[in-house]
């Protein structure tokens, strides 16, 4: 059934190439996404066997798969409305690229072979480049060029990392294999210097894709220039996928008994990401670039969470879900605001709540959620991560994280409040809220709110199983 999950979106993408009607082609997106989500849920609940040598699901990938699939469905519904008002740009490229992007992300999530996973992550880069270039202007071409070049270099480094890990198993009598299960079994006997170097290259490579500082430089440009729904998919979906790839490396390192070194590297990059994000978010005049730096910040939090281990890892797993949905809601509403004001800069955007009552309010709610205010989900997950840091006696790190979070809150608050509050200028609004364009962010925010108030028993258990995979095995 897993094969179907990967091939189905591709089949719909092929179908979209021959469908002549514009509106029908747009509706193919939800038609591809809804069964994908249904099937994912069935697979996650173990209705079908889903464990193979090449592709398979474990607790970690189940978590990322469902999150990505829900996010994509929301963005697909939004896309129908968005493409309807963007008839000038057409949807002949957007629809198939989005579906192939979904397929590549799914493959990257379920892959249990490092080479296959690498191939899938590479495919996501290629499939998303035309999406970033959607607007066809000078700024979007600049963003696409940076995205392609930096991510290609990153992905090449990840490949070197995988080769190093493969080389580290050469000394063992068994044949060289990149299957995750085989690697985890043979990890204690691997050649340590090669494994360490391999992990570092893997971290740098997939870290570029995930947007950890100092390899985040493509992020503000790409997120800023891409349409809101593409930003939502990149910030919520693709980053989670890249994070999963890094976690695979961490799993191997932990199995080899070198988890401590891997965690230190993650901690360093996580703290640096928080610092960089905090610096660039203060007085940031562009709402989409602001969201991009916020994404860098939350990638940093994820890295810090898993680097601490214990309860912080659990918090990081929860934060992965919260981040995906909150960022989804934020980027989609930011897209609406940009459409209404014809700009994403603070010099033009003012009084978004008056101009767009629903999108503006959701955007403000999203800001409160992402900065960790109760009663939203990220509050719970950030609090858990912080508790994990303080209970493991890392007072300095904990204080630093708190400080950066406070700076981010103030910086982001200044921009978001002046964008949403006040009176809009006298320029006539070009766009008003319409159901297809606010239903998805509304659902995302409701989900984040529910997670913040009550975490169902089954989700709790799933998170614990995922976190347990990253701990030292007895």
């Amino acid at each position, binding site marked *: 059934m897993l094969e179907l999950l990967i091939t189905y979106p591709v089949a719909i993408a092929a179908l979209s190439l021959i469908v002549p009607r514009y509106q029908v082609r747009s509706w193919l997106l939800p038609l591809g996404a809804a069964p994908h989500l249904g099937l994912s849920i069935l697979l996650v609940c173990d209705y079908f066997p889903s464990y193979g040598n090449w592709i398979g699901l474990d607790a970690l990938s189940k978590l990322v798969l469902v999150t990505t699939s829900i996010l994509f469905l929301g963005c697909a519904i939004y896309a129908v409305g968005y493409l309807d008002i963007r008839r000038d740009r057409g949807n002949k490229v957007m629809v198939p690229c989005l579906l192939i992007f979904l397929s590549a992300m799914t493959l990257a999530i379920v892959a249990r072979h490092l*080479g296959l996973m690498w191939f899938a992550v*590479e495919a996501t880069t290629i499939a998303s480049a035309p999406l970033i270039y959607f607007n066809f202007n000078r700024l979007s071409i600049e963003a696409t060029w940076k995205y*392609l070049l930096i991510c*290609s270099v990153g992905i090449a480094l990840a*490949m070197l990392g995988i080769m190093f890990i493969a080389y580290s198993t050469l000394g063992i009598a068994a*044949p060289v294999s990149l299957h995750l299960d085989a690697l985890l079994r043979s990890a204690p006997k691997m*050649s340590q210097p*090669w494994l360490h170097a391999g992990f570092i290259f893997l971290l740098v490579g997939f870290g570029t894709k995930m947007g950890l500082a100092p390899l985040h430089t493509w992020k503000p440009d790409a997120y800023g220039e891409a349409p809101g729904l593409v930003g939502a998919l990149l910030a919520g979906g693709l980053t989670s996928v890249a994070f999963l790839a890094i976690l695979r490396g961490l799993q191997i390192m932990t199995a080899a008994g070198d988890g401590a070194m891997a965690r230190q590297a993650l901690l360093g990059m996580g703290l640096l990401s928080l610092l960089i994000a905090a610096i660039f978010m203060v007085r940031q005049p562009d709402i989409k670039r602001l969201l991009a730096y916020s994404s860098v910040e939350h990638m940093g939090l994820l890295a810090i969470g898993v680097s601490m281990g214990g309860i912080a890892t659990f918090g990081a797993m929860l934060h992965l879900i919260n981040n995906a949905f909150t960022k989804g809601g934020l980027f989609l509403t930011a897209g609406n605001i940009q459409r209404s004001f014809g700009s994403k800069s603070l010099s033009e955007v003012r009084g978004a709540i008056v101009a767009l009552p629903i999108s503006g309010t959701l955007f403000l709610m999203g800001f409160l959620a992402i900065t960790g205010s109760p009663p939203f989900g990220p509050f719970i997950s950030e609090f858990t991560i912080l508790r994990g840091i303080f209970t493991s006696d890392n007072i300095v790190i904990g204080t630093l994280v708190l400080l950066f979070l406070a700076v981010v809150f103030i910086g982001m608050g200044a921009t978001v409040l002046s964008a949403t509050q006040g009176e809009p200028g006298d320029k006539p609004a070009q766009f008003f809220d319409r159901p297809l364009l606010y239903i998805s962010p509304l659902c995302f925010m409701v989900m984040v709110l529910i997670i913040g108030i009550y975490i169902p028993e089954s989700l709790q258990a799933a998170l614990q199983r995922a976190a347990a995979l990253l701990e030292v095995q007895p």
Partner: protein
Amino acid sequence: MTELTNPILLMVILINYFTLGSARLGACIRVVALQGALLALLPLATHGLTGHSLMLAGGTLALKGILIPWLLLRAIREVRIRREIEPLVGYVPTLILGALTTAGSFIFADFLPLFGHHSGGLHVPTALATMLAGFLLLITRRKAITQVLGYLMLENGIFIFGVLLSEAMPLMVEAGVLLDLLVAIFVMGIVLNRINREFSTINTERLSALKE
């Protein structure tokens, strides 16, 4: 094995320096093509004349030695550029940096023990040095085409290391390195074409509207 491979690898390192120090784009593309052709000899020199290494050599020669350089040469002929103007960092400083990174690669490679008949080969330091030279080219030059060239050298470096693994993991290395390269260069080519049409130049310094 080492008496055959090491001269090839040393020539690869010399070519790195040439690209770092030269302003003429055409010449740079040609020597990178030569580097690709030298790399095609590497599987043969490392693993001997087997069917598998012949196949790998053929693929490498066709792609790295002929096809991609030809595409790049055609691109610079179309947009009529010959020289790199004002790199972000001068040629002499880049050369010095190149020398430093090469020395660093040799030191770093000492910490990585080679297995069996690989020992004594210069594969690892050359791979790292070539990657770093490509990386330097990427970050110090303004022309989009030189950046593509840097990416190409980065991939060459990874290929040099991949040769060590090509016996242990047949197909994996070939599929990875060659596919990656072909697809990436293809997509970059399309974007390059767009940049040219939009800005009437392929200088990436014009691509500077997006910054803080």
